[in-house]
Protein backbone atom coordinates (compact mmCIF):
# COMPACT_ATOMS: atom_id res chain seq x y z
CA UNK A 1 0.00 0.00 0.00
CA UNK A 2 1.09 3.65 -0.51
CA UNK A 3 3.09 4.97 2.40
CA UNK A 4 3.07 8.76 2.45
CA UNK A 5 5.68 8.95 5.22
CA UNK A 6 7.96 6.10 4.19
CA UNK A 7 11.07 8.03 5.14
CA UNK A 8 9.96 8.17 8.79
CA UNK A 9 11.18 4.80 10.09
CA UNK A 10 9.69 2.95 13.06
CA UNK A 11 11.13 0.08 15.06
CA UNK A 12 9.93 -3.36 13.84
CA UNK A 13 7.43 -3.86 16.69
CA UNK A 14 5.95 -0.39 16.18
CA UNK A 15 5.93 -0.88 12.42
CA UNK A 16 3.53 -3.84 12.94
CA UNK A 17 1.28 -1.68 15.11
CA UNK A 18 1.45 0.98 12.40
CA UNK A 19 0.35 -1.54 9.74
CA UNK A 20 -2.61 -2.62 11.86
CA UNK A 21 -3.46 1.04 12.45
CA UNK A 22 -3.34 1.75 8.71
CA UNK A 23 -5.63 -1.17 7.93
CA UNK A 24 -8.11 0.09 10.55
CA UNK A 25 -8.00 3.61 9.10
CA UNK A 26 -8.66 2.29 5.58
CA UNK A 27 -11.50 0.05 6.82
CA UNK A 28 -13.12 3.03 8.58
CA UNK A 29 -12.66 5.14 5.42
CA UNK A 30 -14.27 2.45 3.23
CA UNK A 31 -17.15 1.97 5.63
CA UNK A 32 -17.68 5.73 5.81
CA UNK A 33 -17.77 5.87 2.01
CA UNK A 34 -20.32 3.03 1.93
CA UNK A 35 -22.38 4.79 4.61
CA UNK A 36 -22.28 8.04 2.64
CA UNK A 37 -23.31 6.24 -0.57
CA UNK A 38 -26.12 4.49 1.29
CA UNK A 39 -27.44 7.77 2.70
CA UNK A 40 -27.12 9.42 -0.72
CA UNK A 41 -28.62 6.71 -2.93
CA UNK A 42 -31.24 5.57 -0.41
CA UNK A 43 -31.98 8.78 1.47
CA UNK A 44 -34.06 8.86 4.60
CA UNK A 45 -36.18 11.71 5.87
CA UNK A 46 -36.66 12.55 9.51
CA UNK A 47 -39.74 14.45 10.76
CA UNK A 48 -40.35 15.39 14.34
CA UNK A 49 -42.41 17.60 16.58
CA UNK A 50 -41.89 18.67 20.15
CA UNK A 51 -45.18 19.48 21.82
CA UNK A 52 -43.40 21.11 24.75
CA UNK A 53 -42.84 24.13 22.56
CA UNK A 54 -39.17 23.53 21.81
CA UNK A 55 -38.02 24.36 18.30
CA UNK A 56 -37.52 21.58 15.82
CA UNK A 57 -34.61 22.07 13.43
CA UNK A 58 -36.19 21.09 10.14
CA UNK A 59 -38.93 18.87 8.73
CA UNK A 60 -41.52 19.51 11.40
CA UNK A 61 -44.46 17.11 11.74
CA UNK A 62 -47.88 18.67 11.52
CA UNK A 63 -50.15 18.00 14.50
CA UNK A 64 -53.91 18.19 14.96
CA UNK A 65 -56.27 17.03 17.69
CA UNK A 66 -59.09 15.86 15.43
CA UNK A 67 -61.19 14.83 18.41
CA UNK A 68 -60.79 14.42 22.18
CA UNK A 69 -59.39 10.92 21.78
CA UNK A 70 -57.77 11.11 18.36
CA UNK A 71 -54.56 12.79 17.24
CA UNK A 72 -53.37 13.26 13.69
CA UNK A 73 -49.74 13.81 12.71
CA UNK A 74 -48.67 14.78 9.18
CA UNK A 75 -45.39 14.52 7.33
CA UNK A 76 -44.98 16.27 3.99
CA UNK A 77 -42.92 14.78 1.19
CA UNK A 78 -43.33 14.03 -2.50
CA UNK A 79 -40.95 11.08 -2.41
CA UNK A 80 -41.95 7.45 -2.05
CA UNK A 81 -40.48 5.50 0.83
CA UNK A 82 -40.42 1.85 1.84
CA UNK A 83 -40.41 1.93 5.62
CA UNK A 84 -41.67 4.27 8.31
CA UNK A 85 -40.30 4.18 11.84
CA UNK A 86 -42.70 5.95 14.15
CA UNK A 87 -41.93 6.99 17.72
CA UNK A 88 -44.03 8.69 20.39
CA UNK A 89 -42.73 10.02 23.67
CA UNK A 90 -45.33 10.70 26.30
CA UNK A 91 -45.06 12.76 29.47
CA UNK A 92 -44.57 10.93 32.76
CA UNK A 93 -47.30 8.77 34.31
CA UNK A 94 -49.39 8.43 31.17
CA UNK A 95 -51.52 5.42 30.28
CA UNK A 96 -49.79 2.56 28.52
CA UNK A 97 -49.85 2.90 24.73
CA UNK A 98 -48.59 -0.64 24.00
CA UNK A 99 -50.54 -2.31 21.20
CA UNK A 100 -52.27 0.95 20.25
CA UNK A 101 -52.57 1.16 16.48
CA UNK A 102 -51.00 3.90 14.39
CA UNK A 103 -53.04 4.09 11.20
CA UNK A 104 -51.28 5.55 8.16
CA UNK A 105 -52.45 7.02 4.88
CA UNK A 106 -51.00 9.17 2.10
CA UNK A 107 -53.21 11.80 0.57
CA UNK A 108 -53.55 15.55 0.07
CA UNK A 109 -54.64 17.17 3.33
CA UNK A 110 -57.09 19.51 1.54
CA UNK A 111 -58.63 16.48 -0.17
CA UNK A 112 -59.22 14.95 3.27
CA UNK A 113 -61.36 17.90 4.43
CA UNK A 114 -64.90 16.89 5.42
CA UNK A 115 -67.40 16.92 2.59
CA UNK A 116 -70.03 19.61 2.75
CA UNK A 117 -73.64 18.45 2.48
CA UNK A 118 -74.44 20.95 -0.25
CA UNK A 119 -72.67 20.54 -3.58
CA UNK A 120 -70.81 23.35 -5.40
CA UNK A 121 -73.09 25.86 -7.08
CA UNK A 122 -72.66 28.43 -9.81
CA UNK A 123 -70.47 31.36 -8.75
CA UNK A 124 -71.68 34.95 -8.53
CA UNK A 125 -72.01 36.65 -11.91
CA UNK A 126 -73.05 33.51 -13.79
CA UNK A 127 -75.75 34.04 -16.42
CA UNK A 128 -77.78 30.85 -16.88
CA UNK A 129 -80.55 29.58 -19.07
CA UNK A 130 -82.76 26.59 -18.52
CA UNK A 131 -85.51 25.89 -21.03
CA UNK A 132 -87.16 29.33 -21.39
CA UNK A 133 -86.01 30.63 -18.04
CA UNK A 134 -83.05 32.94 -17.54
CA UNK A 135 -81.12 33.56 -14.37
CA UNK A 136 -78.32 35.56 -12.82
CA UNK A 137 -76.38 34.44 -9.75
CA UNK A 138 -76.21 37.53 -7.60
CA UNK A 139 -75.03 37.87 -3.97
CA UNK A 140 -74.93 34.10 -3.55
CA UNK A 141 -78.51 33.59 -4.76
CA UNK A 142 -80.00 32.58 -8.07
CA UNK A 143 -82.35 35.27 -9.39
CA UNK A 144 -84.72 34.71 -12.26
CA UNK A 145 -85.32 37.38 -14.89
CA UNK A 146 -89.05 38.13 -14.77
CA UNK A 147 -89.49 37.92 -18.52
CA UNK A 148 -88.00 38.35 -21.98
CA UNK A 149 -88.81 42.08 -21.92
CA UNK A 150 -86.61 42.63 -18.87
CA UNK A 151 -83.79 40.71 -20.49
CA UNK A 152 -83.87 42.66 -23.74
CA UNK A 153 -84.40 45.99 -21.95
CA UNK A 154 -81.24 45.33 -19.96
CA UNK A 155 -79.43 44.60 -23.20
CA UNK A 156 -78.89 40.86 -22.83
CA UNK A 157 -79.19 38.37 -25.67
CA UNK A 158 -79.46 34.59 -25.46
CA UNK A 159 -75.75 34.29 -26.31
CA UNK A 160 -74.86 35.87 -22.97
CA UNK A 161 -76.36 32.94 -21.06
CA UNK A 162 -74.86 29.51 -20.54
CA UNK A 163 -76.85 26.31 -20.19
CA UNK A 164 -77.79 24.96 -16.79
CA UNK A 165 -79.89 21.95 -15.85
CA UNK A 166 -82.79 22.22 -13.41
CA UNK A 167 -80.84 20.20 -10.91
CA UNK A 168 -77.82 22.50 -11.13
CA UNK A 169 -80.00 25.53 -10.62
CA UNK A 170 -81.44 24.00 -7.51
CA UNK A 171 -78.03 23.80 -5.86
CA UNK A 172 -78.19 27.59 -5.37
CA UNK A 173 -80.42 29.39 -2.91
CA UNK A 174 -83.32 31.14 -4.66
CA UNK A 175 -83.35 34.93 -4.61
CA UNK A 176 -85.89 37.55 -5.66
CA UNK A 177 -86.86 37.73 -9.29
CA UNK A 178 -85.30 40.52 -11.37
CA UNK A 179 -88.28 42.67 -12.23
CA UNK A 180 -86.73 46.03 -13.03
CA UNK A 181 -84.88 47.04 -16.18
CA UNK A 182 -83.75 50.32 -14.67
CA UNK A 183 -81.07 48.98 -12.46
CA UNK A 184 -78.59 46.20 -13.01
CA UNK A 185 -78.43 43.62 -10.22
CA UNK A 186 -75.26 43.11 -8.21
CA UNK A 187 -72.62 40.86 -9.83
CA UNK A 188 -73.57 41.90 -13.35
CA UNK A 189 -70.62 41.85 -15.72
CA UNK A 190 -69.77 44.42 -18.38
CA UNK A 191 -67.24 45.04 -21.10
CA UNK A 192 -66.61 48.74 -21.60
CA UNK A 193 -63.87 49.99 -23.89
CA UNK A 194 -61.79 46.78 -23.64
CA UNK A 195 -62.03 46.65 -19.85
CA UNK A 196 -64.20 44.18 -17.96
CA UNK A 197 -66.19 45.32 -14.93
CA UNK A 198 -68.24 43.75 -12.18
CA UNK A 199 -71.04 45.62 -10.47
CA UNK A 200 -71.17 45.34 -6.71
CA UNK A 201 -73.31 47.53 -4.42
CA UNK A 202 -73.72 50.00 -7.30
CA UNK A 203 -69.98 50.39 -7.75
CA UNK A 204 -68.19 49.20 -10.87
CA UNK A 205 -65.01 47.28 -10.11
CA UNK A 206 -62.70 46.79 -13.07
CA UNK A 207 -60.80 43.56 -13.66
CA UNK A 208 -57.07 44.15 -13.87
CA UNK A 209 -56.92 42.47 -17.28
CA UNK A 210 -58.88 40.32 -19.69
CA UNK A 211 -56.89 37.29 -18.51
CA UNK A 212 -58.08 37.94 -14.94
CA UNK A 213 -61.70 38.12 -16.10
CA UNK A 214 -61.35 34.92 -18.10
CA UNK A 215 -60.09 33.09 -15.01
CA UNK A 216 -63.68 33.42 -13.71
CA UNK A 217 -66.03 33.72 -16.68
CA UNK A 218 -66.45 33.31 -20.41
CA UNK A 219 -66.24 36.42 -22.65
CA UNK A 220 -69.91 36.04 -23.62
CA UNK A 221 -71.06 36.59 -20.02
CA UNK A 222 -70.08 40.27 -20.10
CA UNK A 223 -72.56 42.76 -21.52
CA UNK A 224 -70.93 45.21 -23.91
CA UNK A 225 -71.58 48.84 -23.07
CA UNK A 226 -70.18 52.17 -24.23
CA UNK A 227 -68.25 54.71 -22.18
CA UNK A 228 -71.39 56.65 -21.34
CA UNK A 229 -72.39 53.77 -19.10
CA UNK A 230 -69.44 54.56 -16.77
CA UNK A 231 -71.05 57.89 -15.88
CA UNK A 232 -74.03 56.13 -14.32
CA UNK A 233 -71.99 54.41 -11.63
CA UNK A 234 -69.01 55.08 -9.39
CA UNK A 235 -65.95 53.31 -10.69
CA UNK A 236 -63.47 51.98 -8.15
CA UNK A 237 -60.15 52.16 -9.98
CA UNK A 238 -58.13 51.73 -6.77
CA UNK A 239 -58.95 48.09 -6.18
CA UNK A 240 -59.23 46.22 -9.46
CA UNK A 241 -60.26 42.56 -9.39
CA UNK A 242 -57.45 40.09 -9.90
CA UNK A 243 -57.38 36.44 -10.84
CA UNK A 244 -59.59 33.72 -9.37
CA UNK A 245 -58.39 31.89 -6.28
CA UNK A 246 -56.12 28.99 -7.08
CA UNK A 247 -54.79 30.52 -10.33
CA UNK A 248 -51.12 29.89 -11.08
CA UNK A 249 -49.20 32.92 -12.28
CA UNK A 250 -45.64 33.43 -13.41
CA UNK A 251 -43.69 36.65 -13.22
CA UNK A 252 -39.98 37.03 -13.80
CA UNK A 253 -38.50 33.72 -12.59
CA UNK A 254 -41.10 33.08 -9.91
CA UNK A 255 -44.30 31.04 -9.91
CA UNK A 256 -47.12 32.21 -7.69
CA UNK A 257 -50.45 30.92 -6.43
CA UNK A 258 -53.35 33.34 -6.00
CA UNK A 259 -54.88 32.92 -2.55
CA UNK A 260 -57.57 35.44 -1.55
CA UNK A 261 -55.98 38.83 -2.14
CA UNK A 262 -52.41 37.67 -2.05
CA UNK A 263 -49.92 35.93 -4.30
CA UNK A 264 -47.85 33.25 -2.68
CA UNK A 265 -44.56 32.25 -4.32
CA UNK A 266 -43.57 28.59 -4.37
CA UNK A 267 -40.38 27.93 -2.46
CA UNK A 268 -39.04 25.49 -5.07
CA UNK A 269 -40.13 23.43 -8.13
CA UNK A 270 -40.40 20.27 -6.00
CA UNK A 271 -43.17 21.84 -3.91
CA UNK A 272 -45.00 22.89 -7.09
CA UNK A 273 -44.92 19.34 -8.42
CA UNK A 274 -45.64 17.75 -5.03
CA UNK A 275 -48.95 19.65 -4.95
CA UNK A 276 -49.96 18.04 -8.22
CA UNK A 277 -49.75 21.18 -10.34
CA UNK A 278 -48.72 21.25 -13.97
CA UNK A 279 -46.28 23.68 -15.60
CA UNK A 280 -48.65 24.15 -18.52
CA UNK A 281 -51.34 25.62 -16.26
CA UNK A 282 -49.28 28.67 -15.36
CA UNK A 283 -50.50 31.99 -16.74
CA UNK A 284 -47.77 34.56 -17.45
CA UNK A 285 -48.61 37.78 -15.62
CA UNK A 286 -47.35 41.28 -16.22
CA UNK A 287 -46.11 43.78 -13.66
CA UNK A 288 -49.52 45.43 -13.32
CA UNK A 289 -51.31 42.13 -12.71
CA UNK A 290 -48.79 40.94 -10.11
CA UNK A 291 -48.42 44.37 -8.54
CA UNK A 292 -52.09 44.24 -7.61
CA UNK A 293 -51.41 41.65 -4.92
CA UNK A 294 -49.69 41.62 -1.60
CA UNK A 295 -47.01 38.98 -1.40
CA UNK A 296 -47.44 36.33 1.24
CA UNK A 297 -44.90 33.97 2.84
CA UNK A 298 -43.60 31.26 0.54
CA UNK A 299 -45.77 28.28 -0.23
CA UNK A 300 -43.98 25.35 1.31
CA UNK A 301 -44.77 21.67 0.92
CA UNK A 302 -46.52 21.56 4.29
CA UNK A 303 -49.32 23.94 3.25
CA UNK A 304 -52.64 22.50 2.07
CA UNK A 305 -54.22 23.47 -1.24
CA UNK A 306 -56.17 26.76 -0.97
CA UNK A 307 -59.85 27.48 -1.53
CA UNK A 308 -60.79 27.36 -5.19
CA UNK A 309 -58.71 24.25 -5.88
CA UNK A 310 -60.49 21.54 -7.81
CA UNK A 311 -59.70 17.87 -7.18
CA UNK A 312 -60.61 15.00 -9.47
CA UNK A 313 -60.93 11.62 -7.75
CA UNK A 314 -59.82 9.18 -10.46
CA UNK A 315 -61.28 6.09 -8.82
CA UNK A 316 -64.77 7.51 -8.19
CA UNK A 317 -64.85 9.92 -11.16
CA UNK A 318 -65.94 12.78 -8.92
CA UNK A 319 -64.87 16.37 -8.82
CA UNK A 320 -64.52 18.39 -5.63
CA UNK A 321 -64.07 22.08 -4.95
CA UNK A 322 -62.15 23.16 -1.88
CA UNK A 323 -64.18 25.73 -0.02
CA UNK A 324 -62.49 26.94 3.15
CA UNK A 325 -61.91 23.93 5.39
CA UNK A 326 -64.40 21.72 3.59
CA UNK A 327 -64.90 20.31 0.14
CA UNK A 328 -67.97 20.41 -2.04
CA UNK A 329 -68.74 17.92 -4.74
CA UNK A 330 -69.09 19.47 -8.19
CA UNK A 331 -72.13 17.86 -9.75
CA UNK A 332 -73.29 18.79 -13.21
CA UNK A 333 -71.25 19.39 -16.31
CA UNK A 334 -72.12 23.05 -16.60
CA UNK A 335 -70.87 23.87 -13.09
CA UNK A 336 -67.78 21.78 -13.72
CA UNK A 337 -67.07 23.74 -16.89
CA UNK A 338 -66.78 26.92 -14.84
CA UNK A 339 -64.57 25.49 -12.12
CA UNK A 340 -62.35 23.58 -14.55
CA UNK A 341 -60.76 26.82 -15.64
CA UNK A 342 -58.18 25.73 -13.13
CA UNK A 343 -57.00 22.25 -14.05
CA UNK A 344 -58.04 19.71 -11.41
CA UNK A 345 -55.51 18.04 -9.15
CA UNK A 346 -55.61 14.27 -9.54
CA UNK A 347 -56.47 12.43 -6.32
CA UNK A 348 -57.99 9.13 -5.23
CA UNK A 349 -60.88 8.50 -2.83
CA UNK A 350 -59.02 5.37 -1.78
CA UNK A 351 -56.21 7.53 -0.39
CA UNK A 352 -58.61 8.74 2.32
CA UNK A 353 -58.65 5.28 3.88
CA UNK A 354 -56.02 4.48 6.46
CA UNK A 355 -54.63 1.51 4.58
CA UNK A 356 -51.62 0.66 6.69
CA UNK A 357 -51.13 0.36 10.42
CA UNK A 358 -48.65 -0.75 13.02
CA UNK A 359 -48.94 -1.53 16.73
CA UNK A 360 -46.89 0.50 19.20
CA UNK A 361 -44.33 -1.31 21.38
CA UNK A 362 -42.78 0.11 24.53
CA UNK A 363 -39.14 1.14 24.12
CA UNK A 364 -36.43 1.14 26.73
CA UNK A 365 -34.97 4.46 25.55
CA UNK A 366 -35.97 7.28 25.60
CA UNK A 367 -38.07 6.84 28.73
CA UNK A 368 -41.85 6.85 28.19
CA UNK A 369 -41.41 6.12 24.51
CA UNK A 370 -43.22 3.80 22.15
CA UNK A 371 -42.39 2.90 18.59
CA UNK A 372 -43.40 0.84 15.62
CA UNK A 373 -42.25 0.15 12.09
CA UNK A 374 -44.44 -0.26 9.05
CA UNK A 375 -43.89 -1.02 5.40
CA UNK A 376 -45.45 1.73 3.31
CA UNK A 377 -44.43 0.85 -0.24
CA UNK A 378 -48.08 0.28 -1.10
CA UNK A 379 -48.82 3.94 -0.31
CA UNK A 380 -46.33 5.07 -2.95
CA UNK A 381 -48.85 4.77 -5.76
CA UNK A 382 -51.43 7.02 -4.12
CA UNK A 383 -51.30 10.65 -5.30
CA UNK A 384 -50.57 12.99 -2.43
CA UNK A 385 -47.77 14.57 -0.47
CA UNK A 386 -49.14 14.24 3.06
CA UNK A 387 -48.41 11.13 5.07
CA UNK A 388 -50.94 11.19 7.92
CA UNK A 389 -50.68 9.15 11.12
CA UNK A 390 -53.73 8.69 13.29
CA UNK A 391 -53.63 7.46 16.86
CA UNK A 392 -56.62 6.78 19.02
CA UNK A 393 -56.03 7.10 22.72
CA UNK A 394 -57.57 8.39 25.94
CA UNK A 395 -58.62 12.07 26.11
CA UNK A 396 -56.13 12.79 28.91
CA UNK A 397 -53.07 11.46 27.00
CA UNK A 398 -50.26 13.99 26.95
CA UNK A 399 -47.71 13.53 24.19
CA UNK A 400 -44.32 15.13 24.65
CA UNK A 401 -42.73 14.53 21.25
CA UNK A 402 -43.23 12.50 18.12
CA UNK A 403 -40.84 11.40 15.41
CA UNK A 404 -41.31 9.73 12.03
CA UNK A 405 -38.32 8.49 10.05
CA UNK A 406 -38.92 7.52 6.44
CA UNK A 407 -36.40 5.26 4.77
CA UNK A 408 -35.97 3.31 1.56
CA UNK A 409 -35.16 -0.35 1.10
CA UNK A 410 -31.91 -1.09 -0.68
CA UNK A 411 -33.17 -2.43 -3.97
CA UNK A 412 -32.84 -1.79 -7.67
CA UNK A 413 -36.10 0.18 -8.02
CA UNK A 414 -35.19 2.70 -5.33
CA UNK A 415 -31.67 3.01 -6.71
CA UNK A 416 -33.07 3.63 -10.16
CA UNK A 417 -35.41 6.33 -8.83
CA UNK A 418 -32.58 8.12 -7.06
CA UNK A 419 -30.27 7.90 -10.08
CA UNK A 420 -33.05 9.26 -12.25
CA UNK A 421 -33.49 12.25 -9.90
CA UNK A 422 -29.73 12.84 -9.87
CA UNK A 423 -29.58 12.71 -13.67
CA UNK A 424 -32.50 15.11 -13.98
CA UNK A 425 -30.96 17.55 -11.52
CA UNK A 426 -27.61 17.35 -13.28
CA UNK A 427 -29.15 18.09 -16.66
CA UNK A 428 -31.26 20.94 -15.26
CA UNK A 429 -28.21 22.40 -13.56
CA UNK A 430 -26.41 22.55 -16.87
CA UNK A 431 -29.44 23.84 -18.76
CA UNK A 432 -30.38 20.66 -20.58
CA UNK A 433 -33.53 19.62 -18.81
CA UNK A 434 -36.64 20.80 -16.97
CA UNK A 435 -37.65 19.72 -13.49
CA UNK A 436 -40.27 16.99 -13.65
Amino acid at each position, binding site marked *: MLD*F*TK*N*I*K*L*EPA*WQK*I*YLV*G*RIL*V*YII*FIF*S*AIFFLNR*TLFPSLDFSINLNGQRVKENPLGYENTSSDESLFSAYTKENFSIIDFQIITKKNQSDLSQKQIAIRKTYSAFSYPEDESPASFPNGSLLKNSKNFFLVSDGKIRKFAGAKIISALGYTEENFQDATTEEIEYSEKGEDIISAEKYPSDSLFLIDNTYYKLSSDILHPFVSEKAFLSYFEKSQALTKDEEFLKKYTVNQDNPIGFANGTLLSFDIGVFLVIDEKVVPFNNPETFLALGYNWEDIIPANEEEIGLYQRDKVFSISRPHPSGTVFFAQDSNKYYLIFGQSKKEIRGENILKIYSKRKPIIAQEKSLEFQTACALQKKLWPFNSYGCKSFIENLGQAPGKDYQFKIQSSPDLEISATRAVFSKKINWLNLRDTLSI*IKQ*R*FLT*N*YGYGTTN
Partner: protein
Amino acid sequence: MAMEQRTKKQLGLLSYKLLYEILILWLLAILGLTVIQVIMPNFFFSSFFLAKIIIALFVLLLLISYLGKINSSDILPALENSDKIWNKKVIFLFIISTALIVNSFRDLGMFLLIPISVFALIVLFFLFHQTINSSNNQ
Protein backbone atom coordinates in the same frame (compact mmCIF):
# COMPACT_ATOMS: atom_id res chain seq x y z
CA MET B 1 13.99 5.91 31.66
CA ALA B 2 15.67 5.51 28.28
CA MET B 3 13.07 2.80 27.53
CA GLU B 4 10.28 5.19 28.40
CA GLN B 5 11.72 7.90 26.21
CA ARG B 6 12.11 5.48 23.32
CA THR B 7 8.49 4.34 23.68
CA LYS B 8 7.33 7.94 23.81
CA LYS B 9 9.32 8.78 20.68
CA GLN B 10 7.97 5.76 18.77
CA LEU B 11 4.41 6.56 19.88
CA GLY B 12 4.84 10.13 18.67
CA LEU B 13 6.13 8.97 15.29
CA LEU B 14 3.37 6.35 15.00
CA SER B 15 0.70 8.97 15.79
CA TYR B 16 2.25 11.34 13.27
CA LYS B 17 2.29 8.70 10.52
CA LEU B 18 -1.29 7.58 11.19
CA LEU B 19 -2.58 11.14 11.33
CA TYR B 20 -0.78 11.87 8.06
CA GLU B 21 -2.54 8.84 6.54
CA ILE B 22 -5.88 10.15 7.78
CA LEU B 23 -5.02 13.59 6.38
CA ILE B 24 -4.48 12.22 2.87
CA LEU B 25 -7.74 10.27 2.96
CA TRP B 26 -9.54 13.32 4.40
CA LEU B 27 -8.18 15.49 1.59
CA LEU B 28 -9.34 12.95 -0.99
CA ALA B 29 -12.78 12.95 0.61
CA ILE B 30 -12.93 16.77 0.59
CA LEU B 31 -11.88 16.83 -3.04
CA GLY B 32 -14.62 14.36 -3.97
CA LEU B 33 -17.27 16.18 -1.93
CA THR B 34 -16.25 19.56 -3.39
CA VAL B 35 -16.56 18.23 -6.94
CA ILE B 36 -20.01 16.78 -6.10
CA GLN B 37 -21.11 20.03 -4.45
CA VAL B 38 -19.97 22.08 -7.46
CA ILE B 39 -21.75 19.84 -9.96
CA MET B 40 -24.96 19.48 -7.94
CA PRO B 41 -25.07 22.23 -5.31
CA ASN B 42 -26.94 21.41 -2.09
CA PHE B 43 -28.46 18.24 -3.53
CA PHE B 44 -26.56 15.61 -1.55
CA PHE B 45 -25.56 17.79 1.37
CA SER B 46 -25.46 21.44 2.32
CA SER B 47 -22.50 23.80 2.09
CA PHE B 48 -22.62 23.91 5.88
CA PHE B 49 -21.78 20.21 6.03
CA LEU B 50 -18.81 20.74 3.70
CA ALA B 51 -17.65 23.67 5.84
CA LYS B 52 -17.69 21.42 8.93
CA ILE B 53 -15.53 18.85 7.12
CA ILE B 54 -13.04 21.56 6.15
CA ILE B 55 -12.90 22.89 9.71
CA ALA B 56 -12.14 19.34 10.89
CA LEU B 57 -9.31 19.29 8.34
CA PHE B 58 -7.77 22.34 9.99
CA VAL B 59 -7.99 20.64 13.38
CA LEU B 60 -6.20 17.65 11.88
CA LEU B 61 -3.50 19.89 10.39
CA LEU B 62 -2.99 21.56 13.77
CA LEU B 63 -2.58 18.15 15.42
CA ILE B 64 -0.08 17.03 12.78
CA SER B 65 1.81 20.29 13.09
CA TYR B 66 1.95 19.90 16.89
CA LEU B 67 3.20 16.32 16.66
CA GLY B 68 5.66 17.40 13.99
CA LYS B 69 7.10 20.06 16.33
CA ILE B 70 7.43 17.63 19.23
CA ASN B 71 9.17 15.04 17.06
CA SER B 72 10.94 17.50 14.77
CA SER B 73 14.36 15.97 15.30
CA ASP B 74 13.16 12.68 13.76
CA ILE B 75 10.64 13.97 11.24
CA LEU B 76 12.29 16.94 9.55
CA PRO B 77 15.37 15.16 8.16
CA ALA B 78 13.15 12.36 6.85
CA LEU B 79 10.79 14.57 4.90
CA GLU B 80 11.36 14.73 1.16
CA ASN B 81 12.90 17.94 -0.03
CA SER B 82 11.98 18.00 -3.65
CA ASP B 83 12.79 20.80 -6.03
CA LYS B 84 10.43 19.35 -8.57
CA ILE B 85 7.15 21.23 -8.66
CA TRP B 86 5.60 19.24 -11.45
CA ASN B 87 5.03 15.74 -10.10
CA LYS B 88 2.02 13.48 -10.65
CA LYS B 89 0.08 14.76 -7.63
CA VAL B 90 0.43 18.40 -8.66
CA ILE B 91 -0.60 17.69 -12.24
CA PHE B 92 -3.67 15.80 -10.95
CA LEU B 93 -4.59 18.72 -8.66
CA PHE B 94 -4.04 21.19 -11.50
CA ILE B 95 -6.45 19.28 -13.76
CA ILE B 96 -9.10 19.14 -11.02
CA SER B 97 -8.64 22.86 -10.24
CA THR B 98 -9.04 23.73 -13.91
CA ALA B 99 -12.25 21.72 -14.14
CA LEU B 100 -13.67 23.33 -10.97
CA ILE B 101 -12.77 26.87 -12.06
CA VAL B 102 -14.19 26.42 -15.57
CA ASN B 103 -17.37 24.89 -14.11
CA SER B 104 -17.82 27.82 -11.72
CA PHE B 105 -17.62 30.34 -14.56
CA ARG B 106 -19.52 28.32 -17.15
CA ASP B 107 -22.46 30.74 -17.28
CA LEU B 108 -20.27 33.67 -18.32
CA GLY B 109 -19.89 32.79 -21.98
CA MET B 110 -16.74 31.79 -23.82
CA PHE B 111 -15.28 35.29 -24.24
CA LEU B 112 -15.16 35.83 -20.47
CA LEU B 113 -14.78 32.21 -19.38
CA ILE B 114 -11.39 31.59 -21.06
CA PRO B 115 -9.49 34.71 -19.88
CA ILE B 116 -10.92 34.55 -16.33
CA SER B 117 -10.15 30.84 -15.97
CA VAL B 118 -6.62 31.28 -17.32
CA PHE B 119 -6.05 34.23 -14.95
CA ALA B 120 -7.35 32.23 -11.96
CA LEU B 121 -5.08 29.29 -12.82
CA ILE B 122 -2.04 31.58 -13.16
CA VAL B 123 -2.74 33.08 -9.72
CA LEU B 124 -3.17 29.57 -8.28
CA PHE B 125 0.13 28.46 -9.85
CA PHE B 126 2.03 31.45 -8.42
CA LEU B 127 0.57 30.92 -4.94
CA PHE B 128 1.54 27.24 -5.07
CA HIS B 129 5.03 28.09 -6.40
CA GLN B 130 5.57 30.65 -3.61
CA THR B 131 4.38 28.17 -0.94
CA ILE B 132 6.75 25.45 -2.17
CA ASN B 133 9.67 27.92 -2.40
CA SER B 134 9.13 29.28 1.11
CA SER B 135 8.84 25.80 2.66
CA ASN B 136 12.01 24.71 0.84
CA ASN B 137 13.84 27.77 2.17
CA GLN B 138 12.71 26.92 5.72
